[in-house]
């Protein structure tokens, strides 16, 4: 299955499990299998592990441990934030939802659904780099707005949003501010105290798949989506995914500890990759380079090249890349993010996203550039 010669440049889609996470999880996959909610010694061990993970995540994102709600994914955390807040706000007479146009589907589709069940949904545009328009946002938010949701950083192009300003705008209307920080956490310090609700995912930071978290700032009232045994202060019932949560905690702790030392080198390699692509291939447009951007992201459109055959050729050359965000059917639509940024439809369908990890080397970058250049030559023949 695993091809040792694969060059993995799709770290925005998911990341390999960190050794720290694996080591922390292992005991809880074997002897320490108890249900964390039970009352005997081995259950206490499991519960203790979860609480350590809660503290690790809280410390890494500027939250208090009791503000952490573990979920089954980042998508679930976004759903809990939007639906949970909307449900609560309706009782207070607020029915407005305001989101950015480049939100991940986890937010965009949830808002769309809320629109179908009676909420007013406003979608705020972005500039050519994918930065949300603060003027438009100010105009969209009113005294009936329940929640504003703008991502911390974009998954496709890596654009980092002006979170502090967005939070101020939401707060001035006494609306809640939610931010999807799933993509941001690996390479960007995230201070979740700036938002009322912040969503995270374990597998984007070297943790296991199937675990996420929502930071619910003290005093923020939301309704749960999943009712049952009352875990996570009643906000997310379900038997604890003990090993998963513990792996998440270990991974996020390790990521936070190393971040400041690894980010400069990731960024340097990213800049080299981007420069080489532009130098070796004609007609390369870099998407979103004019604004603060996540360290590992390169998103380019290549004139006259369709993303789908390009991905096939790169796959054949052992390079794992993406032409947008990976979704259920495996098909690619012209990226809604690029279209919102004003990229033409042909260029939007020719997008290539390469996302670096901490293990990416200079040789990897050179190999990627050659692979893309070869594929483009072939497709332009």
């Amino acid at each position, binding site marked *: 299955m695993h091809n040792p010669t694969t060059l993995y440049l799709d770290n925005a889609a998911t990341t390999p499990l960190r050794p720290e996470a694996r080591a922390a999880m292992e005991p809880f996959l074997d002897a320490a299998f108890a249900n964390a909610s039970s009352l005997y010694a081995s259950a206490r061990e499991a519960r203790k592990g979860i609480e350590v993970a809660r503290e690790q995540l809280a410390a890494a994102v500027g939250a208090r441990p009791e503000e952490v709600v573990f979920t089954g994914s980042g998508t679930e955390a976004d759903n809990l934030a939007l639906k949970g807040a909307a449900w609560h706000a309706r009782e207070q007479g607020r029915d407005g939802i305001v989101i950015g146009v480049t939100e991940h589907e986890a937010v965009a589709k949830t808002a769309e659904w809320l629109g179908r069940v009676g909420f007013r949904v406003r979608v705020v545009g972005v500039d050519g780099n994918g930065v949300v328009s603060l003027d438009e946002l100010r105009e969209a938010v009113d005294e009936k707005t329940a929640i504003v949701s703008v991502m911390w950083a974009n998954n496709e192009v890596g654009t980092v949003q002006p979170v502090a300003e967005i939070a101020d705008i939401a707060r001035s209307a006494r609306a809640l501010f939610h931010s999807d920080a799933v993509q941001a956490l690996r390479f960007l310090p995230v201070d979740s105290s700036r938002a009322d609700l912040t969503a995270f995912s374990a597998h984007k930071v070297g943790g296991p798949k199937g675990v996420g978290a929502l930071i619910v700032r003290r005093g923020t009232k939301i309704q749960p989506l999943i009712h049952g045994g009352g875990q996570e202060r009643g906000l997310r019932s379900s038997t604890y995914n003990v090993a998963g949560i513990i792996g998440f905690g270990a991974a996020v702790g390790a990521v936070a500890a190393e971040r400041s030392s690894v980010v400069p080198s990731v960024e340097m390699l990213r800049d080299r990759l981007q420069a080489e692509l532009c130098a070796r291939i004609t007609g390369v447009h870099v998407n979103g380079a004019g604004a603060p951007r996540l360290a590992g992201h390169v998103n380019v459109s290549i004139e006259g090249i*369709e993303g789908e055959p390009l991905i*096939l050729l790169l796959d054949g050359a052992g390079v794992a890349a993406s032409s947008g965000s990976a979704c259920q059917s495996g098909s690619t639509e012209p990226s809604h993010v690029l279209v919102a940024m004003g990229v033409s439809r042909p260029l939007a369908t020719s997008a290539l996203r390469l996302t670096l990890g901490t293990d990416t080397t200079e040789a990897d970058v050179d190999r990627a550039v050659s692979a893309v250049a070869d594929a483009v030559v*072939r497709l332009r023949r």
Partner: protein
Amino acid sequence: MKILVAMSGGVDSSVAAAMLVAEGHDVTGVHLKLSEASPESNGRVHGCCTVEAADDARRVADVLDIPFYVWNLKDTFSSAVIDDFVREYERGRTPNPCVRCNETVKFGALLDRGRATGFDAVATGHYAINREEDGRRRLYRSADRTKDQSYVLATLGRQELAFARFPVGAQTKDRTREIARSLMLRTADKPESYDICFVPDGDAAAFVERAGATVAPGPILDPDGNEVGEHGGIHRFTVGQRRGLGLATAERRFVLEVDASRNAIVVGPGELLARGGLTAEKVSWVGGEPPVTADCTVQVRAHGEPVPATITSVEAGRVAVRFGRPQRGIAPGQLAALYDGDEVLGAGTIDAALPL
């Protein structure tokens, strides 16, 4: 050989991929996303473009251990197939979208992409036989006559056919299902699909209306030109149609003609449907050249019987054919496929029926 297989998620293309793998080829699967599953139905539309169809195809590719991709050719499909479908109905004609899809999508855009990405051939699950004999490209009816799809492939030319492979075309559907079961492919017992994939409810007229076609009520005329009623738009009628006329008459009436220039339909008794021949436009010949003999058979609809005929004239892109015996229901817009026995000679779009 590096072969790209178009995998719809159905049993035929699944088995086509499996047969090519068994023959030792370097096979890659690709599922084409051609139209949008309607959101109201939660993605559960009958047809080949649902998420489920893509999942079925992907699962077969997993079992065969071949690379698999989903390619979005919606834009091509929409402009080349759906727009053409709507325009043809607006003109009072009865199009065959599967023919257009084969020409422009499967053996058009897909074939171009397959070539560009370094494949030596593109394979599909069609029932037809495609081979080279004495240096000439030939296309024949399938060994399974009940499944034969040579009609919807009849407009392909040498170059497309030389790049195309139909692995299941030389066997029966039963054999295909047997192979699928023996490989325990998940798609082995999937039902046949008959509908137009983007009109899953079978109501082409409603689809054409939803697509924003210019349609208007107009007169229903008898063969002498007397107005006998009103119709709701010529796109709702096809030559030979009997239902939906809304006329209360003692004898059965059929649509004899759809006259777009007058926005009228002409109705009359069944015996007036008989025609002596047809002319066709946009004619292509499998071998590149018109056939040397005039005798042939002609098939005028997808599941129709071939009838003996004589080619009476061939000129640039056009052909005229006389039937050996009168034929009913010659509908402009449909494909006229010409055969010599089981061999496809060529095809064109019917533009007129000829009198007896």
